């Protein structure tokens, strides 16, 4: 079945992150063909016809004996994973047209948390800019989801980005291994970013980097020579359309490639999320990472 995902711009018209998250996740789950969270626990979910290529270990031989038909027995997954989402609140995250990067990140993080709660994962949240602004430890109790969503909704941009300080604090909070999701625009040297985040990996955590960028950052278009003002530092740089069309894009692509290759080199998953991209891609990445944790 072909799934039609909701455009981020349409999501921005929905008020309330819980509704956004629910809309995204329900739509996502309904469209899943073969979900990776099936088949790893003892809680029966459903039967399915055997098809060539399926693992014979999952065939219900009792049913075969009775009906001479091969059915696969399917089980619901276990939810004993801890998921911690780190959301960058630096001022550069406020860039972009509706939805801007922060709004998009809110949708993404909300959807991830919502999905994680659906999977019975313990879910936590850290908001940071140049230091940790808010920390909600992972938990799976009732009402925790609403707390998280409320915090995300109220989150406002801070000042500069500094991965060093908040990650050092965060390392102190990590008690057991789990899944760590970092949502940021990563305006820093890729080497520094990876070096800062890499210690999480040493503690057997699965780390996923969601690189959120506005389309204008990837492919900026201006009608004439312009003076660009850095939202965080306030620095002004005069640029020409020619430069933005050619050299800047090369540098941006290089930056993304560096980040990606260094992240993958450090055993992390990297995922580029332009703000005009449907959120299901992020959810898939989460599920893939969670599968790695099983």
């Amino acid at each position, binding site marked *: 079945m072909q799934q039609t995902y909701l455009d981020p711009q349409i999501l921005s018209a929905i008020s309330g992150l819980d509704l956004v998250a629910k809309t995204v996740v329900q739509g996502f789950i309904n469209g899943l063909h073969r979900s990776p969270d099936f088949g790893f626990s003892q809680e029966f979910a459903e039967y399915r016809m055997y098809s060539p290529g399926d693992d014979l270990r999952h065939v219900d031989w009792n049913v075969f004996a009775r009906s001479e038909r091969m059915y696969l027995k399917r089980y619901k997954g276990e939810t004993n994973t801890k998921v911690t989402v780190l959301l960058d609140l630096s001022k550069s995250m406020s860039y972009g047209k509706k939805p801007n990067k922060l709004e998009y990140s809110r949708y993404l993080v909300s959807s991830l948390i919502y999905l994680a709660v659906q999977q019975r994962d313990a879910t936590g949240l850290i908001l940071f800019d140049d230091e940790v602004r808010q920390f909600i430890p992972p938990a799976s109790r009732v009402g925790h989801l609403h707390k998280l969503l409320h915090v995300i909704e109220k989150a406002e941009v801070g000042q500069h980005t500094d991965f060093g300080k908040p990650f050092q604090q965060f390392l102190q909070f990590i008690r057991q291994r789990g899944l760590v999701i970092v949502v940021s625009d990563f305006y820093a040297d890729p080497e520094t970013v990876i070096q800062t985040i890499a210690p999480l990996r040493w503690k057997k955590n699965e780390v996923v980097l969601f690189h959120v960028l506005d389309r204008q950052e990837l492919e900026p278009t201006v009608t004439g020579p312009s*003076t660009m003002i*850095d939202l965080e530092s306030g620095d002004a740089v005069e640029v020409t359309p020619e430069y933005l069309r050619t050299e800047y894009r090369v540098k941006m692509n290089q930056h993304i490639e560096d980040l990606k290759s260094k992240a993958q080199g450090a055993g992390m998953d990297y995922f580029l999320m332009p703000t005009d991209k449907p959120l299901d891609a992020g959810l898939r990445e989460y599920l893939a990472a969670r599968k790695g944790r099983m």
Partner: protein
Amino acid sequence: MGLLSPWWLLAGALGAALPYWLHLLQQHKQDPVDFASTMLLERRTESTTYQRKLKYKALMALRLLILLLIAFAFAQPFLRKPPAILNAGNTLNIVVVDNSFSMREGDRLNVAKQEANSALSAGATSQVWSLGSHVSFLSQVTKDRAELTGGINSIGSTDEKSSFAELSRALRDASRSTGRPLKVTFITDAQKTALPPSFGDLSLEPGSEMKIVEVGRKLANYTIETVNAPKTLSDLTKAKVNATVAAFNAPAAKKTVVLKVNGKVLASKTVDVPENGRATVEFTGLDGPYGWLRGEVEISDSDALIEDNRFYFAVERADPRKVLLIEEQRGTRAGLYFKAALESSAQSFFAVEEMSAGAAASANLSNYAFVVLNDPGVNVKGIEGTLRKYVESGGAIWIAAGSQTGSMPAVPVAGFATSGSKVASRGTQRYFAPANVDPTFPSLRRTGRLEGVRFFQYVSMTAPEGSVIAARLEDGSPLLIEKKMGEGKVLVFASTFDNVANDLPVKPGFVPFVEQTADYLGRVEDRSSSFVVDSYLELRSDQKRASSVEVIGPKGDRVLTLKEAAAANTLRLTEAGFYDVRRENDRQELVAVNVDRRESVLDPVARENLQLWEQSGKGAASSSGAAGSTDTPAPEPQSFWWWAALLAFVTLLAESYLSARYLQVKA
């Protein structure tokens, strides 16, 4: 510098604010743009941006300039250029000698030439003019005294009439075109008749000086003022020549007046001319061969101005021209009346030839001056094509419509639709009276508007579009209709020439009606053969047709050059005497030209009036000087708005070029 409409400049200044505001908006668009991070940006655009700003400024400046220049042009700027008189130290001396006809009196012209020579100042830039009816330039503007003297000596007497207004106009033009102050010396007999009706026509340009040297004096003079003679005659014994002898400032005297034809004295009469009055002499009978006769009426006694004692006239002796009267039946009463009326005139030049419609079929119609169709009916239908061809090739037909014509659906040849004959009833309306008679129509000039004529019967017809209705009856029906057909014409009279359908033949207007119509249709009055000097003779009636015209002047020389002979439409008659004009098809015509008799009046203008004329240039200068509270003429405003408009156009081109370049870079 000044502005005739300064408000435009204010409007332009406000208008110029618009592009300036747009420019500011454009600059505003270049305000810094927020960007997530400049980490990956490099500054390398400073020079480009700088150039672009320069471009914008240049464009803005050009646009502002265009608007301001347009507003400036609309404000009509002008410069107060000092008059040429102020900045020209080189005065132009103009010596004008009057050589009109009246200067032939005594030794006036020689005296005038001597005065002109003495008026030449050594080393001064001068020019010599002569004045008749026109101004002639007899030398270049030069300091060469020999050339100037030669110009003066070349002045000869003319038969022209002097015009002081023409001189003033030429002086004004010279002053404006040269931009130099004029110093004019005018040697003239200062005839009173040379003054224009309005003294304002004599005014000179400010700063022009004029000095009038009078060489004339008041003298008694007798002249033949007018001569009336027939133009064309077949019977010279009937010819009557009337001459008027006039005395100007002259006492009563007995004058002997002589009639000459071709130089031969035919008659001589003595007449008593009253003091400052006129007397008339009548000669009866002329004599001479066939063709054009050169007639002269002359006062044999001498007086102050002998040349005006002779008056020229031209008479053509020719066989009478034939008129063809076509009738259904010969010997009708209408034919009789018509023939009698046409041949009874003393000035008559026509002989009527009667013919039946059947006999007319074999006649050569081109031999006839015109054709008369008396009550054409069925019999004429047979020759209608011939008649139509005759008209279209330049002939003329006069149709008198009677009862037979009324019985036909259309008038023969003319083709006017008829609706039968209308007869006045014996009741209340016993006749129809003419109404709406055009007295200027050639046939009806001396007919007294046909008053008192009663029409008992007429043919009702419809005049087609393009025809001329010269007279109508009181019920609105056309009575006399003219229609052009090709080169010729058809004249339709809605009644007959007898005294049955109307009583016109027994009324006094009948003979002039027939005579004038015959002259009109026979083209006798087409051209006059008497002119005054300076009038223009028409050489070609059809200007589109190429034909050669030859004119022999009074002195026996060819007046026209080869080019003029082939193309000139008119000839200016400059001399008194006889002009022999040979038109196309060897048609010869003799034209008598006489001097304008106002030249015979030798009364000079009062000295006070001449002084006023002399001071008209100074007066204008001093009056304008008084207005400017200086002693100099007021500066003349010279508008130069077109320069501003031209500059605006050039600026517009530059703006378009810059804009195009800018847009190209942008694209």
